[in-house]
């Protein structure tokens, strides 16, 4: 909402600076989003007094003036105008001044005569489009003063963000009321003088069906008007407030709305047939709105209709056909109250927004219905002629402006605000229109009457907000609340530990393209699809993090990265909606070089075991042990390089190589490895328990066998553990070789054993025995041959 200062001043005599007014508005809850200064009065234009005036010796149309501008010496100025005389006060642009039209005033010679400034017209000061001669100032204008200051030319337009609860502040009067109340200034009441009514003009007949939605409807008829463009001052005001002038009648209506907050409408009376009816639309009824759009109505819409057709969507927009044009001679003026919720529904379902609907939705002061009607019809007849009928009024004009009453315990208010409320706050609230009566029977209780313009105030807490605004939040102390309790909580590092391993955490949107979803998830109807996505690329809730990670990898590899290691902590979403699940997951991606070449080590490309190792380390960090098993049937993964991850008995995720065709869809020409773990399936993990350190030394033994290549190392190690018995502390594969000397289809695996006994030092025989058991087990289970 744009509020020109000059307009505001018509409602309250505020003299404060623009900055102070802006600060006050902010403190009262009207956020100032910007301050425009369309007329930041020209500096350097002073009030001049013409001391003498002679004809220019060499030019008929020029005059030589001697002008007192309050300096020691009068200025000699050559002037082309002729509407002035000796003794007149005129605006003089002194040397160095820049005028709004871009002209910079310099010393000069005109036809041989020196000139030290310029006498100005209204146009040259930017006050009018064009002008005939100089602006002659009043006789008492103080010589030498800045004309801008003297004429109060400074204009500022406050751009306010009016909150949706303050419909009453969507007008000059509304803002002025808050300001005036706060500053202790009077609010200037609009003229209450009734417009001259002509009996011969017949008032419109109005029927209101369903008065719940339209508690008050007033209308009058004005005959014999001649629509013209509205006067400059009015157009200028509308422009300053951000509205485009249309033509006289519409401009007056808009002006009244901006001035008083009451939206009105004007119909061309000649386009109407029969009585006016306020009713719900019939299903299937249509009308063409003023903006040219055809709208299909239904029974939820409140409309204004005549005997034949819908002439307006109530409170929102009139029909194109019945609108006032420049050829209109008779009009019906409407000023009414409509139920906010009704307007809101139609605005939303029909997609029509107007300055009128914005106000009705937020609440309009019904007390202005009559005042606005008076002001608008008075302006119309004085500007465009015509005769006004009586105003038809349907509904209880008194009832709609009935005050609400709220009983307020000051103790509760003060407890809620955390500060004592000073008595002076009540004065401000009374100036805002509240009336406050002390209840003698209850010491700390006040009885509030809420004025009709404050739709937003209905309970005690609303009153507490009024007090907070008036006292100012700055006056409220900052106090720490008492500490209630601190519940013990285990801090679980999730993504943090992956980051410690060198992964870069990324955060991607939770919605992806349906096509991307299909790469890793079958089309089984369990996608959750947005009805109003930003784009197709962001239209389904992701069921896999991999498409997002692949996109991120692509983005970075396209930006000269030679490798990426990414991790994302987030959710995946699975339908159907009625059984929807949001699953917390961690997902990793590795592609390309793990490190750049360094003097001590050449770069190496990530492989399956880098990815698997990262997941293993991460799980170990949580006190969990994972097992991995071949899974050749995971969508989007390359079989033979993919495993499912077991923690306990459940599969918590997968690790593997992304199918090459998919990787190349993301422009990734290197191997891409990914993993994901369902965090909701992970149990808490074991807490480390103290164990005494071993007292006796351990023995390390190595055995190397030839195995068939198809045997999984995991099953070999399982058999090893079983064969070795309880003295085995660790067994792991320390060497793998399938090069020269190893028969085709076989692989040489070196297994390192660490044996240790808790109660005694192991002997050579002990370890020999264990190794012998292993050798035999390998032979029986796997037909493995001991090498060398």
């Amino acid at each position, binding site marked *: 909402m744009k509020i020109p200062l000059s307009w505001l001043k018509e409602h309250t005599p505020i003299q404060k600076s623009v900055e102070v007014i802006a600060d006050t508005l902010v*403190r*009262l809850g009207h*956020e100032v989003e910007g301050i425009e200064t369309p007329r930041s009065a020209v500096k350097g234009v002073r009030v001049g007094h013409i001391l003498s005036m002679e004809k220019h010796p060499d030019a008929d149309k020029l005059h030589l003036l001697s002008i007192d501008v309050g300096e020691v010496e009068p200025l000699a100025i050559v002037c082309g105008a002729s509407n002035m005389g000796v003794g007149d006060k005129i605006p003089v642009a002194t040397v160095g001044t820049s005028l709004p039209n871009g002209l910079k005033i310099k010393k000069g010679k005109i036809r041989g005569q020196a000139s030290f400034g310029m006498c100005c017209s209204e146009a040259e000061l930017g006050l009018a489009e064009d002008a005939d001669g100089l602006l002659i100032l009043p006789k008492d204008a103080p010589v030498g003063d800045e004309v801008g200051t003297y004429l109060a030319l400074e204009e500022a337009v406050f751009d306010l963000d009016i909150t*949706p609860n303050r419909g009453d502040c969507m007008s000059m009067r509304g803002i002025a009321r808050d300001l005036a109340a706060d500053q202790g200034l009077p609010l200037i009441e609009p003229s209450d003088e009734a417009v001259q009514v002509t009996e011969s003009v017949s008032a419109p007949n109005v029927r209101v069906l369903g008065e719940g939605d339209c508690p008050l409807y007033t209308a009058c008829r004005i005959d014999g008007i001649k629509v013209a463009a509205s006067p400059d001052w009015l157009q200028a005001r509308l422009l300053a407030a951000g509205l485009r002038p249309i033509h006289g009648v519409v401009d007056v209506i808009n002006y009244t709305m901006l001035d008083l907050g009451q939206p009105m409408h004007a119909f061309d009376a000649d386009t109407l047939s029969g009585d006016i009816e306020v009713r719900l639309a019939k299903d299937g009824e249509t009308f063409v709105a003023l903006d040219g759009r055809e709208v299909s109505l239904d029974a939820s819409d409140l409309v204004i209709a005549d005997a034949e057709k819908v002439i307006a969507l109530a409170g929102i927009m009139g029909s194109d056909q019945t609108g006032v044009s420049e050829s209109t001679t008779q009009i019906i003026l409407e000023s009414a109250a409509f139920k906010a*919720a009704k307007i*809101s529904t139609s605005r*939303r379902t029909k997609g029509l927004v107007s300055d009128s609907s914005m106000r009705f939705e*937020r609440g309009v002061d019904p007390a202005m219905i009559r005042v606005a009607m008076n002001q608008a019809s008075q302006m119309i007849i004085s500007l465009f002629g015509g005769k006004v009928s009586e105003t038809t009024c349907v509904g209880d004009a008194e009832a709609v402006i009935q005050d609400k009453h709220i009983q307020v315990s000051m103790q509760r208010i003060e*407890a*809620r*605000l*955390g*500060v004592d409320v000073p008595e002076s706050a009540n004065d401000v609230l009374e100036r805002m229109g509240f009336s406050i009566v002390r209840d003698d029977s209850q010491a700390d209780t006040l009885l509030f009457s809420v004025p009709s313009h404050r739709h937003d105030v209905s*309970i005690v*807490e609303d009153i*507490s*907000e009024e007090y*907070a605004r008036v006292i100012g*939040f*700055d006056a*409220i*102390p*900052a*106090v*720490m*609340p008492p500490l209630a309790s*601190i519940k013990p*909580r285990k801090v679980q590092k999730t993504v*943090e530990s*992956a*980051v*410690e391993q*060198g992964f*870069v*955490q*990324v*955060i*991607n*949107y*939770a*919605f992806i393209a349906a096509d991307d979803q299909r790469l890793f998830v079958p089309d089984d109807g369990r996608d*959750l*699809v*947005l*009805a*109003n996505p*930003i784009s197709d690329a962001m239209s389904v*809730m992701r069921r896999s993090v991999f498409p997002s990670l692949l996109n*991120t990898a692509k*983005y*970075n590899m396209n*930006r000269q*990265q030679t490798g*990426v290691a990414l991790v994302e*902590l987030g*959710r995946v979403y699975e339908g159907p*909606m*009625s059984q929807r699940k*949001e699953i917390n997951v961690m997902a990793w991606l590795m592609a390309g070089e793990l490190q750049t070449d*360094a003097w001590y080590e050449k770069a190496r490309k990530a492989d399956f075991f880098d990815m698997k190792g990262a997941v293993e380390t991460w799980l170990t960090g949580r006190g969990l042990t994972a097992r991995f098993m071949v899974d050749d049937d995971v969508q989007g993964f390359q079989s033979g390089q993919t495993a499912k991850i077991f923690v306990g008995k459940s599969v918590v995720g997968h690790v593997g190589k992304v199918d090459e065709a998919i990787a190349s869809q993301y422009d990734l020409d290197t191997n891409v490895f990914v993993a994901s773990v369902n965090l909701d399936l992970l149990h808490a993990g074991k807490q480390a328990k103290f164990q005494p350190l071993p007292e006796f030394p351990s023995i390390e033994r190595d055995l190397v066998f030839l195995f068939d290549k198809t045997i999984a190392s995991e099953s070999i190690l399982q058999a090893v553990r079983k064969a070795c018995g309880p003295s085995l502390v660790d067994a792991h594969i320390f060497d793998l070789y399938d090069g020269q000397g190893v028969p085709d289809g076989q692989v040489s695996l070196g297994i390192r054993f660490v044996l240790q006994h808790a109660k005694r030092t192991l002997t050579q025989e002990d370890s020999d025995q264990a190794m012998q058991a292993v050798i035999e087990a390998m032979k029986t289970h796997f037909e493995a041959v001991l090498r060398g």
Partner: protein
Amino acid sequence: MSELDALKVALKTLQDKALDEFSNAESLQALQVLRVSYLGKKGELTSVLKGVGKLPPKERPVIGQFVNASKQTLSESLEKREACLALKEKQVRIEAERIDVTLSGRTSSKGSLHPVQQGLNEMTAIFSQLGFDIAEGPEIEDEFHNFDALNIPQEHPARAMHDTFFFHPDGDEKANLLRTHTSPVQIRTMKACVDAGGEPPLAVVATGRVYRCDYDVTHSPMFHQVEVFKVDKNISLAHLKGVLQHFLSAYFEKDVPIRLRPHYFPFTEPSAEVDIACVFCHQKGCRVCKGSGWIEVLGSGMIHPNVLKSVGIDSTVYSGFAFGLGVERLVMLKYGIPDLRLFFENDVRFLRRMGA
């Protein structure tokens, strides 16, 4: 010349020769050879001693002393030379082992937490210290939790201000949507407490992703919020201000002046928007604060009685404050990040630089 004198002269000559050779020895190894050749069992000095037998017994001790003194001299000289050579050799070795210590160390490439995650961690840590519990809630919400229970009825103009993502209706179910703020967690947490037969005090911080159907330079369709609320007897606006002041100063790691401005939110009454003194210009006025010296950071207020009512908490007994903030916004302000989109482009160069 007596036999004795001749022996003395021979010994002296031998000693001088040995000393000379010792001082000319250029390596520990050569020195070792000299030691053996002079002082060893078959060494020259020993062989000189063999001549002692020819002397009269009376003179033997004299030459014995002489020989011992010579032995002593030679040993000392040897040790001296040995130490000197050892030092020299060590210096040579050290010089040979000289490396370029300015070469980079063996590092592994560092990962990084996403700046938003870092912000979330820092913020929740501050509230944890203040005794706030940490809660989470679903991102796919219904209209009741996202709007109705928060005192935003269907026709409320504020509802239109939330550009909501809706889901395709699934049968005849209620409309489902992506939550537009973390405030539904307020409702869920309070309701869960009441349903379990509990009652306030409640102090909760809830974090998570939220969604708005708005996508341009300053809007991301997904962003993160932190929601904080406390419900107890006698909770006041002053408490809200106290917690805000503490939180904002703790987060920005300095005393930040704050300003509360009256505002409107359907779920709080009174409501306030909270500004901090511009962190870029220290209130001198700059482009970021549009010359005002203040930067809006969050919305707050006293929980509306209708909200408490919707979860079954008696607003005549309990009151509470609540506020919600955009994590990205605060992170941008703290680290001077100019563009919201950087957070979701996930350029690892940005993430590595900004991430902890």
